[in-house]
């Protein structure tokens, strides 16, 4: 969980940084995918890097989901008789939303790939001009809403996931625990802000 989650976390950070190029206008944004595909061109050919990353991420995703399902099944088996009266959440709220949050993120991912990677669900769907696709998307309130829900869920997922990964890998101790939780929260908020900057700059007209 920790390792596959960590790899996908790095991707999410990179993805967010790439998205922010939208603020620098259409040229910068449309150039970004070409630049990505050109990484290591001499060795891997044009687009080679992107395909390697895709395969790696897909592998991480499958392993991550497999581990999550195994944990959920173990949890269900460990408590066959439920409590008649369930207590309030006293630990962390983010921790309690990991499983359903993960499902929401996975569903959004499917939509997101069909929308902006394949272009099938996009109002414009012109793969040569990602800038136009993105701005067209966020003029629809329901797209913005779905996107916002997914990003906030992702934020919760990262808030618990990042800290939990550090704990599972043994990095935490009593002194560091509070700092690590603070860092996880800070990173989650930054990532949410970074991703949400795109739809909200479209909505406010900052990006046309």
């Amino acid at each position, binding site marked *: 969980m920790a390792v596959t989650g960590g790899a996908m976390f790095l991707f999410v950070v990179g993805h967010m940084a790439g998205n922010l190029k939208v603020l620098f206008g259409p040229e910068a944004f449309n150039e970004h995918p070409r630049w990505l595909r050109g990484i290591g061109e001499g060795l891997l050919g044009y687009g080679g890097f992107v395909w390697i990353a895709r395969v790696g991420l897909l592998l991480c995703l499958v392993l991550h989901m497999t581990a999550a399902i195994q944990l959920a099944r173990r949890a269900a088996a460990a408590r066959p008789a439920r409590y*008649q009266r369930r*207590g309030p959440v*006293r630990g962390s709220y983010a921790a309690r939303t990991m499983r359903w949050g993960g499902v929401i993120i996975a569903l959004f991912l499917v939509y997101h790939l069909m929308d902006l990677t394949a272009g099938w669900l996009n109002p414009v769907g012109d793969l040569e001009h990602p800038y136009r696709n993105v701005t067209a998307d966020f003029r629809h309130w329901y797209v913005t809403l779905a996107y916002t829900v997914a990003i906030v869920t992702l934020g919760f997922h990262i808030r618990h996931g990042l800290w939990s990964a550090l*704990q599972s890998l043994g990095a*935490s101790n009593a002194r560091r*625990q509070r700092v690590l939780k603070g860092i996880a929260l800070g990173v989650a908020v930054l990532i949410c802000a970074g991703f949400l900057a795109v739809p909200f700059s479209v909505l406010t007209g900052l990006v046309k």
Partner: protein
Amino acid sequence: MRLTLRVWRQAGPDEDGRLVDYAVDDVSPDMSFLEMLDVLNERLIMEGEEPIAFDHDCREGICGMCGMMINGVAHGPERATTTCQLHMRHFADGDVVVIEPWRARAFPVIKDLVVDRGAFDRIIEAGGYITAPTGSAPDAHAIPVPKPDADKAFEAAACIGCGACVAACPNGSGMLFTAAKATHLGLLPQGQPERYSRAVEMVAAHDALDFGGCTNTGECAVACPKGIPLESIARLNRDVLRATVTGAHEPR
């Protein structure tokens, strides 16, 4: 005070159980939770009914026998307090109090509120010991222990094996208990020879005993009457990881 207790009654391990309501008058705020159950049980016995079975021993918060789920919270609403040390002043007149046994496959119900926590003993058998020469007792100060290590080890040694961590965990995991034992012994010089094999074998025993997997939800540490911190689990993970990567638990 007058309370309504909604208590899980189950005649035996294989019987079906259900919640039964009991009205209890004259509850003094100075009674402990168990004393209140004693009063109810006396009445039930007088009336020729079967008293409510619950575990207890020391009644001073040090033996770990007395856990129960009180309104969905392990050991009730007070933090760092066992059920026997919980006083009725934390409840209000007219309250309905739901009382259930710990629920986990690893802790089968024996009767009413009594569960079998023998699974914890299996985890201890797997590695919760040290190797020490027998014979005359060694001098207490023969092996120096750094003070910070001694303090941490003592904090972990406070675990009374009550099982509240398992009961409170949404995954039904017993990692806080396992980690408390591994931390207690693994920090002391006397525990070093088995440090890595202990970590690996206790976790293996834990996983084989129908406990769930830890996802660091943190419910356990909040429920723990002895304040065992979540960092113990990170310590245990660190030793298990080290053993898996370097083979520190294998013969050299």
